[in-house]
């Protein structure tokens, strides 16, 4: 029987969760003996095949329309979806922006900030539009959660292996943290 397929992607993200994933170091060999990694933002193929994968991992929050589109695409193509890290699970640091009027926030970032000269708010049609920041499960159905900012390499390894083997991830004790 073929190994289950695993794909990861990131949304509104600092990349810390993927760095923590890389911190599993040589355990990546053990992981890849159990699953095939089809794609990730840090490998050459970025998106899972249209035929789908068994396990999808998403880090980062949904802070703009592009994030929502990617989240929906992953939901469609992944049997089970894991929200990785505080941004995907809770909304994370980006949610600080929710307390402010969107126009105010954009103006502050692109025009008023002290290091900006001749600023303007980009409005190209090709750009995603910012939205109220939200965690992944307010956009698509999520099957598993691993909080942490970032979650530790141990927590990520144990969780991925458990999910790939069809078990409940052991997110408790030392592996469970919100910071």
């Amino acid at each position, binding site marked *: 029987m073929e190994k289950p397929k695993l794909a990861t992607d990131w949304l509104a993200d600092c990349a810390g969760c993927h760095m923590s994933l890389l911190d599993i170091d040589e355990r990546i060999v053990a992981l890849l003996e159990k699953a095939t990694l089809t794609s990730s933002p840090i490998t050459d193929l970025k998106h899972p095949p249209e035929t789908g994968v068994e396990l999808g991992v998403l880090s980062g929050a949904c802070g703009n329309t592009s994030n929502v589109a990617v989240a929906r695409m992953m939901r469609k193509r992944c049997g089970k979806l894991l929200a990785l890290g505080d941004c995907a*699970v809770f909304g994370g640091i980006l949610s600080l922006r929710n*307390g402010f009027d969107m126009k105010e926030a954009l103006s502050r970032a692109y025009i008023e900030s002290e290091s900006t000269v001749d600023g303007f708010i980009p409005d190209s049609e090709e750009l995603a539009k910012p939205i109220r920041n939200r965690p992944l499960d307010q956009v698509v159905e999520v099957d598993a959660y691993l909080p942490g900012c970032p979650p530790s390499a141990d927590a990520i390894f144990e969780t991925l292996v458990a999910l790939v083997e069809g078990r409940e991830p052991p997110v408790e004790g030392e592996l469970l943290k919100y910071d």
Partner: protein
Amino acid sequence: MSTVNITINGKPLTVPAGITVLEAAKLAGVEIPTLCHHPALEHVGACRLCVVEVDNQPALQPSCSYPVFEDMHVQTESERVMDMRRFVLELLFSERNHYCMFCEMSGDCELQTQAYNHGLVNWPYPAPHPRYPVDASRQYFLMDHNRCILCRRCIRACGDIVANHTIGVHSRGSRTMITADMDAPFGDSTCVECGTCLQVCPTGALVDRKSAYMGRRKDVTFASSTCSFCSVGCRTLVATRNERPLRVEGDWDGHNTGVLCIVGRFHSLDEKRNRLATPMIRKSGTLSPATWDEALDYIAKAVKASPKEKAKAWVTGKALNETLDAAISAFKDKAGVEVRSLEPLPQGGPLPNGGKMADIDQADRIFIIDVDLLADHRVMGYRIRRCREREAAIILCCDSDNSMVQYATARYPLAKLDDALKECRPDEKVFVVYRADLPAAIREKLEALKDKATLMPLYNAANLARSMSLGLKHGAEVQECQVAYVLARDLALSQEQRTSIRKSAFVVLHGCYDDAADIADVVLPAPVWFEEEGALINAEGIESPVRAAAPMPEGIRAETSVLQDLAARL
């Protein structure tokens, strides 16, 4: 004492009647999680985390406030209870903005700990995320309403422990907000920044500015010490990391029961003056650095050259027991030079004393005689005004303005003290707190009360009780001498004191800061309060330990060591 028989999780127990299920569980060694509960505060049953099943009743009961009854059967960990506790936590996280990754309390937050203990990996109820205000209007600590869980510990602390009654709530349901007075910014309210609310807050809603992000409780060490900023002598725990004191906490086990005031908790670490780093000798008008040997030799020479009666040493009442002893040993015993107190001291015999802070809690009648408690001995003021709730009689006897006026049930001028004392009923527990340097005539009247009342004298400085017991005198002002040795520690000398001291021919200033260095011929640097080891006498007349929270900087020596070294040369 009557008892009842109950079972907890099937285990039979006999416990005192009238206690709560939470207290009974503790006796049985059963842990029940809580959030709004605090050992120093009355229970309110606000958080509902401590719910338990009682006798298959349809509703779960909060164990913190539910009293035990005969033949009661309690389940603390049934599936119903565990589901409900998780639900309570999920609801708490569904309101406001609880983001651990940038919160300074993460790692020490009771809400977070309970969420970890209950295995919460996500928030099932989408949070609407309105932004709640952050009130940074107070000088020393701020309130972030985004992190508040409305446990009401701050309200109870402000009302029941210090009786300031600043904090309350406005509005209802999900709009409920902790508020100061009539919804004023805390910095503009009746808040006195005693920090008791800060000490009891379970989350990062109340944050101490100076120590924020400086380390978790497991990263810091605590030095168990005594505050030296007034003669109450509150017990403190000084949190330190990498030899830097971060903040001062009140010790719940001290006679102050965890309470401090803005002076001991915050002003004590908010020093703006420049520290003296090295001994200095004035040469051709300017102070230049010298070694300890050079400075002490120079001082000894001056003392020996002076007729004994024209030399004097002045020691502040803030000095530790050990320092006072060493000063007497060096000056009086070795050199025959008189040692005096910088602050006024009562003269005459021992003062009526023996009163304990705990006596206040039981007293039916409390006399406050010529002390301005909420200005000079705040923690005492807080402790006494609490008694208004019990309708104790609080009798204020003074002639000048007094901060306790609004809490007193009766007021008498000092001349009418006899009338005030006559109001005492037999069988009343009476507590008397009085200014130590009252005129002898008034003190005699208090002596007469010794069988009927407990008495507590309060002094102008932390350790004047000790200065007094050592027989130190105080003149009307620092007199003109040939040699004046002034051990001032961190005292800020007044203009009158400075002018007075400067009249002497040769002045030695032994202290922490350089604000008065301009009047000195020799300057000796002293350790700051959190660098010293020794003891003080507190308001109960008991020796209270002072422990160093940080080492002395290179070049600074303990006062006792300096005085002993000087004695050797005299």
